[in-house]
């Protein structure tokens, strides 16, 4: 069991003037053998954080550690971190049989390789006879299984799953979720599970991290975050999945806040990044100018929340 740690990780894209800090000083730990669910809206930097971990996005600052050691990356070193992507069709080379795709990712050579491919296909619930199929001949759910098998081929210690069910049809999502959970438990993998769907994250995760505009705003054991959300943004996400849609607030200030457009990541608001949309922030309540001026740091007794007025503080 391996622990994955992000320490002050920042990722920037673009030049100095028109650049954008997609991930900004993120500290996050995926404890060994457990599942950390990462939620947040599109553009909040979830995928970028994941891609930084596997070396697909350049780090601007900070470190990524695996069991306290910086993640090594190179031609020869065995990739201890593997990733499964969102789009099942673009994540497999259409010109390679799925057997070849999986074989390419195993460190084994020779006859052991074929046995390994068979074992992996079996593990993800596909028959070994499928090894000679091309991705175009499989359904989306089956492609996602192959992608998982390929990720497992590298004997990873940590797996990152980025929105792996959001491109699948509802009746297939469940099967893929079951499989990921099964494999994670069986192989005692550490798993960073990214999704925009809080219900899905709740179902698979031991810990939940909530991301907003490049920052982690709340982090803690799944139970604690869900039953006792401290950050107003987390509460809003929870309300979105569990409460019926109502015509809206009577209070005009609250209504205005509820209709604010999502912020522009090129120019994040000063102070607390959530303040223009916060229902308990300076736009609604008096005497909360602090939110506009200084950025809250994650803290708390039970779990971490980056809010000056976190519930229960």
């Amino acid at each position, binding site marked *: 069991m391996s622990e994955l740690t992000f320490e002050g990780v920042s990722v920037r894209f673009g030049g100095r003037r028109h650049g954008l800090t997609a991930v900004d000083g993120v500290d996050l730990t995926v404890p060994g053998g457990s599942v950390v669910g990462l939620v947040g809206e*599109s*553009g909040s930097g979830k*995928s970028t954080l994941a891609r930084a971990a596997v070396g697909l996005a350049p780090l601007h600052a900070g470190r990524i550690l695996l069991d306290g050691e910086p993640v090594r990356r190179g031609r020869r070193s065995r990739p201890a971190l593997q990733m499964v992507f*969102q*789009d099942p069709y673009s994540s497999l080379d259409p010109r390679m049989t799925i057997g070849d795709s999986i074989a390419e990712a195993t460190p084994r050579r020779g006859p052991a390789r074929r046995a390994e491919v068979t074992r992996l296909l079996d593990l993800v619930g596909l028959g070994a006879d499928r090894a000679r199929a091309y991705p175009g001949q499989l359904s989306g759910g089956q492609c996602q299984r192959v992608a998982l098998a390929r990720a497992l081929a590298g004997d990873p210690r940590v797996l990152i799953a980025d*929105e792996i069910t959001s*491109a699948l*049809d509802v009746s297939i999502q469940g099967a893929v979720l079951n499989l990921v959970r099964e494999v994670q438990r069986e192989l005692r993998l550490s798993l960073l599970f990214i999704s925009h769907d809080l219900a899905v994250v709740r179902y698979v995760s031991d810990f939940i991290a909530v991301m907003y505009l490049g920052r982690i705003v709340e982090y803690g054991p799944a139970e604690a975050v869900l039953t006792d959300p401290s950050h107003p943004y987390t509460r809003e996400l929870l309300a979105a999945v569990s409460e019926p849609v109502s015509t809206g607030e009577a209070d005009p200030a609250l209504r205005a806040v509820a209709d604010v457009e999502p912020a*522009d990541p*090129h120019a994040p608001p000063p102070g607390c990044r959530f303040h223009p949309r916060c229902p308990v922030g300076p736009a609604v309540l008096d005497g909360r100018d602090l939110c506009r001026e200084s950025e809250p740091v994650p803290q708390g007794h039970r779990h971490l929340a980056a809010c000056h007025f976190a519930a229960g503080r």
Partner: protein
Amino acid sequence: MTTLLTGVRPPRGFTGNAWTRFAARRLARLLISVWVLVTAAFLMIHLIPGDPVRVALGPTASPELVEARRAALGLDQPLWLQYVHYLGGLFSGDTGTSVGTGLPVSEVIADRLPATLELAGYAFLIAVVVSVPVGVGMAVLTRRGRRRKTELAFTSTSVVLGAVPEFLLAVGLVYVFGVQLGWVPVAGRSGLGSYVLPVLALAVGPAAVLARLLRVETLSVLEADYIRTARAKRLPDRIVYFRHALPNALTATITVGGLLLSAMVAGTVLVENVFAWPGLGTTIVESIIAKDYPLVQGIVLVYGTAVLLVNLAVDVALALLDPRSTIKES
């Protein structure tokens, strides 16, 4: 239904005056391109293997003559100095002297340019005037697999016409209308009749390509979501086609139209030679064969600048038609 959230992210960071930034960036690109063009024209002569003066004067010329000519052309100076002189000359309007005629290059060009411009201008006008209605009309007529025979006839005709190079078409036209029928003059530039064949030879190919492209573009635009929206608004067909479909079909076409116009500028070289048209095209071929390098250099600059201006026009037209392009441009 599948959700690919990442694919649909609103464009962010749209602030300030997009047009000003577009103009500034586009101008910078034009200047860089002109600089590259001028440098390429300057280097062209120096890239010729061996001594261009020796090449031009032939192996029998005496060494003294070669030296004298070298000195006259400034070729005995260091390369950077020659470059500086060349740039300086261009700025003051001095493009050198034609070896063949002894006339200033700019004078030769000024004499020949109008004939070429007329040719390309008329040809482009005709290509556009013919292809737009034909292409859009064919799209509407042959939508969703209707009138398959018409479609086949149109597609094959336009493929063949688009594939015949202008100079061969020119030869064919000369044969049919000049030799066989004797309707119009086949050489020189004298009177309206002499324009008919060269302009046709230049216009037919691009018109065929444009019409075919416009049909395909119109077809794909007609399937777009916003056309469905327009129909959901119950707008009359006329408005759906002209207000919602045409501008979008044109944006893709204009890009190719620009390429075709540039290609037409180049095509004049061949067509002029078939019809002995007194333009830049005949002049550049004569001067390449006669190794009159200053004149070649000058004409290359003219053609290159024409192409850059066409590209500029295309980008401006695109920006006017499609507001997104002022942002994409970078």
